[in-house]
């Protein structure tokens, strides 16, 4: 890669041209991301901003970071955003009418104030500071320099961050997992046929299926198959007009099968 930052404190002409071309584009893209109605358009504009920033990183001698920005940030994170947008509703558009009173003017004012403060603070920090440049830091190459720093001075933070990554992945899995509380009808019928025998495939019969007589003179059957004495009128009982229910009780073999 060619060194762009040749001069300390100020940049060479090629970098300046690059900056003045890409920076307005980045700002416009960011504003666009703020103002467009469709969420997918916002995502694409943000992707453009990120690519611009990757170009800036490379221009500033942060080669590793620039590539990582493209691969991880734009490639993985923004694509993730797009997938979720598809899930949530691609044509879900935000109505731009504000319903909280005074939110827009207050936020623009606050943001301008914030911007002003930031600018003045930073300006105070960097004016009349001689930029050192990364030539000495990058003597062995940018990747090597970063590796050198990362695995000696910042190794503890590195380990902690990797633990964080694992935790985040687990968290995402837990959150995204959905318990199906109710099974579909198809699944229910499949499960029914998959039971040990076909006996209960059709389920239990409806009431009255096993009734063989007019129930006035035959006692009703209790759930365990025995006769219910209170289902007969006492007059009939006294007259002896009861037909014994014993022959009509369900056979034990049939019950056992059930």
């Amino acid at each position, binding site marked *: 890669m060619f060194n762009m930052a040749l001069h300390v404190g100020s940049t060479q002409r090629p970098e300046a041209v690059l900056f003045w071309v890409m920076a307005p584009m980045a700002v416009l893209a960011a504003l666009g991301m703020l103002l467009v109605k469709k*969420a997918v358009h916002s995502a694409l504009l943000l992707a453009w901003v990120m690519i611009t920033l990757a170009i800036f990183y490379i221009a500033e001698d942060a080669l590793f970071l620039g590539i990582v920005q493209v691969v991880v940030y734009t490639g993985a994170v923004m694509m993730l955003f797009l997938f979720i947008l598809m899930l949530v509703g691609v044509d*879900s558009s935000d109505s731009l009418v504000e319903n909280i009173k005074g939110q827009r003017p207050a936020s623009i004012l606050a943001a301008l104030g914030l*911007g002003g403060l*930031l600018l003045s603070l930073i300006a105070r920090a960097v004016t009349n500071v001689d930029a050192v440049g990364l030539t000495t830091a990058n003597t062995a190459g940018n990747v090597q320099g*970063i590796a050198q720093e990362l695995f000696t001075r910042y190794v503890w933070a590195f380990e902690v961050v990797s633990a964080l990554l694992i935790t985040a992945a687990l968290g995402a899995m837990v959150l995204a997992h959905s318990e199906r509380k109710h099974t579909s009808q198809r699944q229910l019928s499949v499960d029914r046929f998959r039971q040990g025998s076909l006996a209960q495939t059709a389920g239990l019969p409806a009431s009255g299926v096993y009734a063989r007589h007019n129930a006035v003179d035959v006692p009703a059957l209790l759930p365990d198959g025995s006769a219910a004495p209170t289902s007969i009128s006492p007059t009939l009982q006294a007259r002896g007009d009861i037909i014994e229910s014993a022959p009509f009780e369900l056979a034990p073999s049939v019950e056992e099968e059930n």
Partner: protein
Amino acid sequence: MDISNYIYLSAILFVIGAIGVVVRRNAIVVFMCVELMLNAANLAFVTFSRINGDLGGQIASFFTMVVAACEVVVGLAIIVTMYRSRRSASVDDASLLQR
């Protein structure tokens, strides 16, 4: 061109992101504005590392990216859960804590 122009650009992008968080109603767009703010901070880190000749700025930027990735993962999972229960991705729907 002064190197500090990068920093001004970073401040502008940060402000735009801040406005977006407060103004937009779609939860995912709000999240994207947060990402924009993080990127603006990254740009500032890289520029400071160039000014001071220390690679520590780039390391910080690296860590920011990692953490941002984790955050995006978990945050989007939350948004999906919210969407599933409520069928709407608007942040204004979570307004039960009023008055």
